[in-house]
């Protein structure tokens, strides 16, 4: 899984409280406060925990898909990555393995034009990502990534193909990253502000979808404002709850390295606890010792 897909997790049923618990790294964070914010994971929702490394998850999806195929499951694996990620060796490795192993996996590339500050013109000279599929012996679909309905039908069709034919398929969604790469990034340093504004105002996928549902009479401004207020309240509440919850206990620093703590970890924990006792002011007060 990749760090730009909280929408998938939300859709599968991850609650706002589960999101904020991870963001604050509190004791209810499934990752036990060990990773930076947005590194979600949910076993219950089949959403494998995110790592920060780029493209490393793509070959995992192929292995997982092969397992689904061997276990004769009516399911496929899906993995997400960006345009920058397609330059990594793991992307090429995974595409080739998936084609050769005939693994039922859907590769979804979110081509938003930017890998932090690097535009796609400095990332590759191919015609985007879709052309790479046939080169590896698999089918590709390129879709307007700002068209929610087109994405839905594309992924639906891809899933049918992947599962029924037990083969991989590549989807390239063409879009634009209107936000900054992260909270530490100021993207106006490397791209014009009016370009960002154009995409935000004229081509925003949410605005576009809203227009469509409104045109069909399924949505109006009151619904919109009610939903926004409701969600804002829920988000703020989830944040307030999450920030008050204490951090995971110190003991969790040493668990899960292995299935059982090794003897060196036991010794290190003992020494650390003695140090914490001697210098309690050196350590955060919200981590129970």
């Amino acid at each position, binding site marked *: 899984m990749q760090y730009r897909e909280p929408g998938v997790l939300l859709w599968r049923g991850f609650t706002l409280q589960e999101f904020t618990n991870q963001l604050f790294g509190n004791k209810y964070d*499934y990752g036990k406060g060990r990773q930076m914010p947005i590194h979600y994971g949910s076993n219950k929702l089949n959403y494998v925990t995110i790592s920060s490394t780029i493209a490393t998850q793509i070959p995992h999806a192929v292995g997982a898909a092969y397992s689904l195929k061997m276990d004769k499951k009516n399911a496929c694996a899906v993995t997400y990555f960006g345009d920058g990620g397609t330059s990594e060796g793991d992307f090429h490795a995974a595409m080739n*393995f998936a084609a050769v192993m005939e693994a039922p996996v859907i590769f979804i590339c979110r081509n938003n034009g930017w890998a932090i500050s690097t535009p796609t013109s400095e990332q590759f000279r191919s015609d985007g990502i879709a052309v790479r599929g046939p080169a590896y012996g698999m089918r590709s679909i390129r879709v307007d990534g700002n068209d929610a309905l087109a994405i839905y039908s594309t992924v639906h069709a891809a899933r049918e193909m992947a599962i029924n034919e037990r083969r991989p398929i590549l989807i390239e969604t063409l879009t634009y990253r209107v936000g900054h790469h992260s909270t530490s990034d100021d993207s106006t340093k490397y791209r014009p502000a009016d370009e960002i504004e154009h995409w935000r105002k004229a081509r925003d996928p949410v605005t576009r979808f809203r227009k469509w549902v409104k045109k069909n009479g399924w949505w109006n401004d009151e619904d919109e404002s009610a939903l926004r207020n409701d969600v804002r309240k829920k988000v703020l509440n989830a944040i307030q709850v999450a920030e008050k919850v204490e951090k995971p206990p110190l003991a969790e620093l040493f668990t899960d390295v292995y299935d059982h703590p090794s003897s060196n970890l036991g010794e290190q924990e003992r020494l650390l606890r003695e140090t914490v006792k001697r210098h309690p002011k050196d350590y955060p007060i919200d981590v129970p010792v």
Partner: protein
Amino acid sequence: MTNLLWRFRGLALRGLCTSSAAAAVEESKKSKAAVNLFSAINQALHIALESDPRTYVFGEDVSFGGVFRCTTGLADRFGKHRVFNTPLCEQGLVGFGIGLAAMGNRAIVEIQFADYIYPAFDQIVNEAAKFRYRSGSQFNCGGLTIRAPYGAVGHGGHYHSQSPEAFFCHVPGLKVVIPRSPREAKGLLLACIRDPNPTVFFEPKWLYRLAVEEVPEHDYVLPLSQAEVIRQGTDITLIAWGAQLAVMEQACVEAEKDGISCELIDLKTLIPWDKETVEASVRKTGKLLVSHEAPITGGFGAEICASIAESCFLRLEAPVARVCGLDTPFPLVYEPFYMPTKNKILDTIKATVNY
């Protein structure tokens, strides 16, 4: 071949297989045959595939039996969907193995030579090793076992001789295991395959054909993170793993002629390593020598020496000693100069004992 004979002359790897008298009696009741190390690996893989239908063996050229013949017969017996060739791409095959293991399978990956493991380094270090920890144990890839032939072979040069174990010993979450003989190889490999943590299993390729000993035909595992004293002694503790134990054994025999009694320990699992067994031995002998083929600087011997210097300082009667590979790339024609040979070890044993 000259090198090889020079290295193991008159050795027949005796003494490398030890067991208690009771265990020996028990063993003698069961079927066993003299086999070499690659055949012992092959037996372990057969048993692994036979005993768990969700076990897979794959890598470059494994279908026909592998370049070292370790996977002979597996594809015929268990089918090409469970034993298969992969594209020539180490990061791909380890990444694929992690995904397979994360779904609850046992994924046994063969890297053709340890020298070629580096393209998979990111997958091993950032992915396999952290999979459990970073998810708070929601996910793990404990079913992953990475096998790779390592070490000198007499004619391997830079890229068919390396001993990269120390890189992986610096990675919490991994287990690193190196067997010294066929019997050990079978039991330790089965232990790695069934251990619920990702393991890297380096096989001493020099011993694939050369090391022959009786190996029980049945399914058995040997404990991980448990070192073994394979030769009792009182004057100095010698630590090694894998093929280097055979050289150490020769040095022990020679030292004995000079009245020096060496205690030889096979570490077997490098991380997490059995510090207690090493400490107990050093407390008895007061001296320590560690030997490995990998370059001396930053090798795993450094970790053992530092740990023992910390914990046994007042018992040490001489500086801790290391006899290791040189800090050069592994050199073809200079291999006999590069290697931590019997006489280098013997000289260091004497210097340490007479310190």
